[in-house]
């Protein structure tokens, strides 16, 4: 299905510095599935923190770096719905701002080849059962950018349902935003926390042991609240659940 396909991992800046285990899980998972994945070392960040705060000029060199890192790959896989959304939907705006037609052409070319992890697994590899084993009670939060910007639909759910040992419980008001929102979490900290408190409450209502999502930024926010409450619920990226196997457990 993908012989000779050149696949790059876009780990994202947040995962690089705060959640390296998620990046390692993607590498483990893809390797197990027979995909040779490369980590282009020139990569840094998708530029979303600047773009979403209004600093478009500042995002231009970051997007240039993105292009030079990922040019030439057939697929770019990322364990972040938000960063995939940024590459697919925001880079063009940044490139146009730069006035550089070459950059516009380059981002338009790369954008459609950027996949959020569940899209890559289901659409490109054609898999829902990735052979994972995770004997825990889990609930899933469909982060806003995966849900609405990318439209990943039920792909993450189907992947989770195929995990052996895993009990998936519905999260009440699942589609409501958790309140992270990038710099919103600090610029409007009070509203962000009020939203997060409700999300954390719904998570606790499920009696789940683990909250899973496809974006560590949102999980850092919800997890930060659950941890402050000593709630006894941990958060985990989808990639880490899918990378878990019986052999490793």
């Amino acid at each position, binding site marked *: 299905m993908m012989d000779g396909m050149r696949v790059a991992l876009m780990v994202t800046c947040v995962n690089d510095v*705060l959640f390296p285990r998620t990046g390692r899980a993607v590498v483990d998972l893809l390797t197990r599935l027979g995909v040779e994945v490369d980590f282009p070392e020139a990569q*840094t960040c998708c530029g979303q923190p*600047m773009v979403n705060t209004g600093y478009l000029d500042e995002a231009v060199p970051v997007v240039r770096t993105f292009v030079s890192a990922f040019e030439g790959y057939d697929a770019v896989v990322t364990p972040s719905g938000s960063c995939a959304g940024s590459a697919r939907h925001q880079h063009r705006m940044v490139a146009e701002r730069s006035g550089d037609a070459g950059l516009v052409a380059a981002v338009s070319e790369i954008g459609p080849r950027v996949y959020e992890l569940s899209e890559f697994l289901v659409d490109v590899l054609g898999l829902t059962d990735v052979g994972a084993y995770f004997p825990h009670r889990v609930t899933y939060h469909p982060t806003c950018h995966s849900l609405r910007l990318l439209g990943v639909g039920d792909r993450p759910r189907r992947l989770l349902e195929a995990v052996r040992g895993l009990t998936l419980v519905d999260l009440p008001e699942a589609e409501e935003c958790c309140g992270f929102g990038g*710099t919103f979490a600090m610029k409007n900290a009070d509203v962000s926390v009020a939203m997060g408190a409700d999300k954390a409450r719904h998570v606790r209502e499920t009696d789940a042991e683990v909250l899973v999502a496809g974006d560590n930024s949102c999980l850092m926010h919800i997890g930060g609240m659950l941890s402050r409450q000593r709630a006894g619920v941990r958060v985990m990226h989808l990639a880490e659940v899918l990378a878990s196997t019986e052999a490793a457990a």
Partner: protein
Amino acid sequence: MSATFVGMPAFPTAARAALADTQLRHNLTHATHTIRDKRARVVAELPEWEELRTAGAATKDRALLTLDEQLVRLEESLTSRGAVVHWARDADEACRIVADVAQAHGVDEVVKVKSMATQEIGLNEALAAEGIAAWETDLAELIVQLGDDLPSHILVPAIHRNRAEIREIFRRRMAASGRPAPDDLTDDPGELANAARLHLREKFLRARVGVSGANFAVAETGTLVVVESEGNGRMCLTLPEVLISVVGIEKVVPTWRDLDVLLRLLPRSSTGERMNPYTSMWHGVTPGDGPQEVHVVLLDNGRSHALADQVGRQALRCIRCSACLNVCPVYERVGGHAYGSVYPGPIGAILNPLLKGVGSDPQVDSLPYASSLCGACYEVCPVKIDIPSVLVDLRAQVVDAHRDRRVPKPEAVSMRAAAWTLSDSRRLARAERISGRAGRWLTRLAGLPGPGRRWTSARDLPAPPRESFRAWWLRTRRRGSRS
């Protein structure tokens, strides 16, 4: 009404106060969830909903693209049917026109149909300054007016109030402006509505001048359309001798047929009804029937400015259904007052900056940031306004407006530093190494004074890992192990 939005603090400060109002939180959660669910149910009944949305957006776009032509046509159609057309550049001009007409008839009161345009221009306050009382006749507007309060929702301006509060307002305030509430008034919705009905009826029968807005204005026929659900609008539009309608220039649609799509989209999106209960349509003067003197004030008040904004102009498609407010997780928690405008919620967060311009008022500049960019608003908008994209574009405009400050804001300094680090992987790798534990570097990215505290006041931070992913990759020589 002496309450005013003037001088409201920037959104984060106003929101903080609103979040602490437990009654407000309780009322709003209940109300927004009720309307939200109702809308979802009736929208799900129509398999062609997405096509309708596309058609609605296209209809409004067509009108806006030819706005100059449509407005001239509208003026001709209205004039030929006996209406007097006035053009108002801004709020002051529009208020002046309405006051002049009222004064020409020597009245000291007018009855009003609920209208966003007249709220936007502060008409009630302007008329009060001339000694003319403007009576709101929509039930929710009446509650707001009697309570000396401010509207907090486009469609349900008293959404922040519950029945007990409304009963109190009626009992204490009705007598001052007409028929008092009955002594034994309870908080039963039927009784409250009846008290309002009896109180308003006297005003309807007395007033000689009516004031309205319009949901749509049809250029080819000169038809104005008012969509309401209580019947008070119909009273105001038919009983007085004189009718003055203040209409934003973006309300024009080219043809009668355009109403078809829009009138199907609006009720399901706004009140969650399949069809609108009272739809009034009139063109100019009908001899012997209804108001015999009809004025139409076509209002700009920043709309031309918004139209010139390539990304933001789509906000002028808005048909004020309020669906975006009802689904917004931010609005749901802070309510409408925190936005400091009669246009709150997601549409307010883009419309106010577009109408007023950014870069001069910190309150206006704070609005594009009053969103987590979750996209729920875009998903429900019946005319497909991509609110998140407009928000991001307006944020860039706010930042650009402050670019030449001699002393840049701390946020700008950190953003530049972050961009410098993030535009070269070697710099990033070095930053990760220097800060020892990789995660510490990230707080700088957040780019705000004291961001750490704002995060940790209610949230724990994860323990930073000893080794970044990049370092792990290099150490384990992933690339080297490949052939």
